[in-house]
């Protein structure tokens, strides 16, 4: 609050030179247009959106441009920062301008570049918040989607896909308003947590006054050597039943939307699920495995050795009992017949003040060409799922993720072309 200074400092003569040093007043750059955030440049008084290319020389880089957005059919990274945003504007034009502004900034971020090149005026804040400076791209992916509420807010319900609506209430849901819904989402995944957070922070900052963060969640994943399936905090492998992201046919059947303005896009379901670790940790291994329907160590279906062995829910033992318990999580999920691409992350966010227990769990994220796929699985789990005893669903949101962007275009162009 006070610095160490002579009691009568104000009686001391300060030389002009010291004065300049004290205040940095001797330093001021002169650069036009270096103050605001990048993305928009003025050329002859017209707003022009810069086109930034994917930089192939960057280390650990995922490409921005392509048929689909990144962060979906991308190998899962170690970290996520997921943000659900509410928009503060009401016009389609403002939304379009925001996506046009964000597009080159997303490419820059995924290139591991600063949001704007160094500014020279030290009297204004820097265009980039700076904490990713010196870090490489860290396989950053940024995935943007729109929620059902956006279409009514922007008065464009005619373009709202029929399948894009708030998810129904499921058994065992204890949804909190501050973890549910949102007009827009930004999913930033990277192998470095600071890179992921930096991306969300800077995109939100670039949209100051246009969006506000409704809820957000950081998450992590760890991978055994040789790119095995990551384990969730219940220590079970999570994602074994996924389609291969390299299998175009399967991805087209399960993940990518096949027509309309959302063609080559997908639906993202995000659900923060609290895991009651203390109760889980006092559950016998046998019961834990019966809860999942898999062996904990290998990830194999119960009675099998191999993680990727076929999951046969009809298989019975000599006494005619199901080998994989009918109430097990995977049994019920498989029974629904629906498939999706799961891309979840664990979270540990401190302690719950009411109970003193870990505030930890799974930020469940899945991608599917129709939210009905997720709904079918969740309904099949219903009240029967033995897992219910150990988890509470705290939040729920669904977003339509735009198709990918071709260079020279911008995120979400297909939507605006259909207006």
């Amino acid at each position, binding site marked *: *609050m*006070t*610095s160490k*200074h002579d009691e009568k*400092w*104000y009686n001391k003569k*300060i030389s*002009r*030179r010291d*004065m*300049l*040093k*004290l*205040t*940095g*007043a*001797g*330093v*001021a*750059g*002169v*650069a*036009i247009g270096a*103050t*605001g955030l990048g993305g928009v440049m003025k050329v002859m008084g017209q707003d022009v959106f810069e086109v930034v290319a994917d930089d192939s020389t960057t280390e650990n880089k995922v490409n921005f441009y392509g048929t689909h957005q990144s962060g979906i059919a991308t190998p899962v990274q170690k970290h996520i920062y997921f943000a659900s945003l509410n928009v*503060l504007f009401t016009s389609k034009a403002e939304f379009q301008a925001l996506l046009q502004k964000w597009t080159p900034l997303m490419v820059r971020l995924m290139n591991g570049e600063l949001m704007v090149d*160094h*500014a*020279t*005026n*030290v*009297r*204004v*804040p*820097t265009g980039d918040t700076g904490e990713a400076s010196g870090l490489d791209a860290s396989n950053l992916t940024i995935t943007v989607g729109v929620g059902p509420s956006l279409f009514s807010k922007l008065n464009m319900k005619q373009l709202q896909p029929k399948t894009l609506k708030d998810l129904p209430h499921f058994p065992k849901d204890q949804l909190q308003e501050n973890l549910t819904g949102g007009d827009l989402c930004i999913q930033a995944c990277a192998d470095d947590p600071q890179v992921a957070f930096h991306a969300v922070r800077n995109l939100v*900052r670039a949209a*100051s*006054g246009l969006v*506000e963060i409704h809820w957000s969640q950081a998450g992590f994943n760890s991978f055994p050597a040789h790119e095995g399936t990551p384990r969730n905090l219940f220590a079970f492998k999570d994602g074994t039943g996924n389609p291969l992201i390299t299998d175009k046919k399967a991805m087209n059947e399960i993940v990518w939307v096949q027509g309309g303005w959302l063609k080559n896009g997908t639906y993202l379901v995000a659900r923060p699920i609290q895991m009651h670790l203390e109760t889980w940790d006092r559950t016998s291994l046998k019961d834990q495995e019966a809860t999942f329907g898999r062996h904990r160590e290998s990830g194999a279906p119960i009675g099998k050795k191999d993680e990727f062995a076929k999951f046969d829910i009809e298989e019975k033992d000599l006494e005619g009992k199901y080998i994989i318990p009918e109430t097990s999580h995977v049994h019920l999920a498989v029974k629904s017949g629906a498939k999706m691409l799961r891309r979840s992350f664990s979270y540990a966010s401190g302690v719950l003040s009411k109970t003193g227990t870990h505030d930890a769990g799974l930020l469940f994220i899945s991608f599917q060409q129709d939210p009905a796929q997720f709904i079918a699985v969740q309904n099949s789990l219903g009240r029967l799922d033995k897992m219910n005893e150990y988890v509470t669903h705290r939040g729920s949101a669904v977003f339509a993720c735009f198709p990918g962007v071709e260079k020279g275009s911008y995120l979400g162009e297909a939507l605006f072309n259909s207006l």
Partner: protein
Amino acid sequence: MKKAKFYSALMVGGLLLAGCGNDEASKVESEETTQSENVESTEVATDLTAELQSYQQFALEQMDQFLIETEKFVELFKAGDIEGAKAAYAPARMYFERSEPIAESFGDLDPRIDGRLADIEEEGKGKEEWSGYHKLEYALWEENTTAGYEAVADQLLADTKELHALVQTVEVIPDLMITGAVDLLNEVSTSKISGEEEIYSHTDLYDFKANIEGAEKIFEILRPKLEAKDAALVTTLDEKFKAVDDLLANYATADGGYVSYLDLTDADTKALAAAVNQLGEPLSQMGIVVE
């Protein structure tokens, strides 16, 4: 928490630094820049002489009023008029809060006048070293007495007179204005919006309003120069100031004051905080006036 910033320098004759272009200033090297190598060492490129004078005038007026109102407050307090002193407390402080960028530049006077117990304790000092407005706030609202606090009231008046005298000699430089506006908003975001400034009287909204008015004044003074540089920024700032003012107006009382901070719900403070943050981002761009 406020950091003392030595933005002000006392100079005989009060020569203004901005745009003076004297030899010595242009020879200064940019060894203390925090920016990248490509920062050029040049003077402020814009002549802000008139703006700096306007702001100085504003600060002097605020300080005159602050002294007058503090005298009244201390008089009521020392007369043992608890209700009268309570009523005079928050309005008097507004003059200080409006011109805080100036007041802040005087080392330990700011904490002596405006220090909170939390700030004092943070420095490892005890209650006995606490002085100023907030100590009297504690006496009035928490202990409901003035007895035993007369010396604190005398000290407050003496400190205020000293501050008033010092401000007469202050020299305003561009950074004081540019940084000052954002600092005022930061004050709001960090202590007023959380109700941590006026923990006994809960008159945080008075301080809130005054901080915003202080920032708005700086914006108004710089407006013509900003218009020429970036008209869209001025439009945005007008909108964002209006949004904050409109929100605050919801909490105004008939006597020209504001409701207690305790009357605000979480939703209320969240909306106010969001409006302040949305104002802060464009406000931080006012530094383009020196380009």
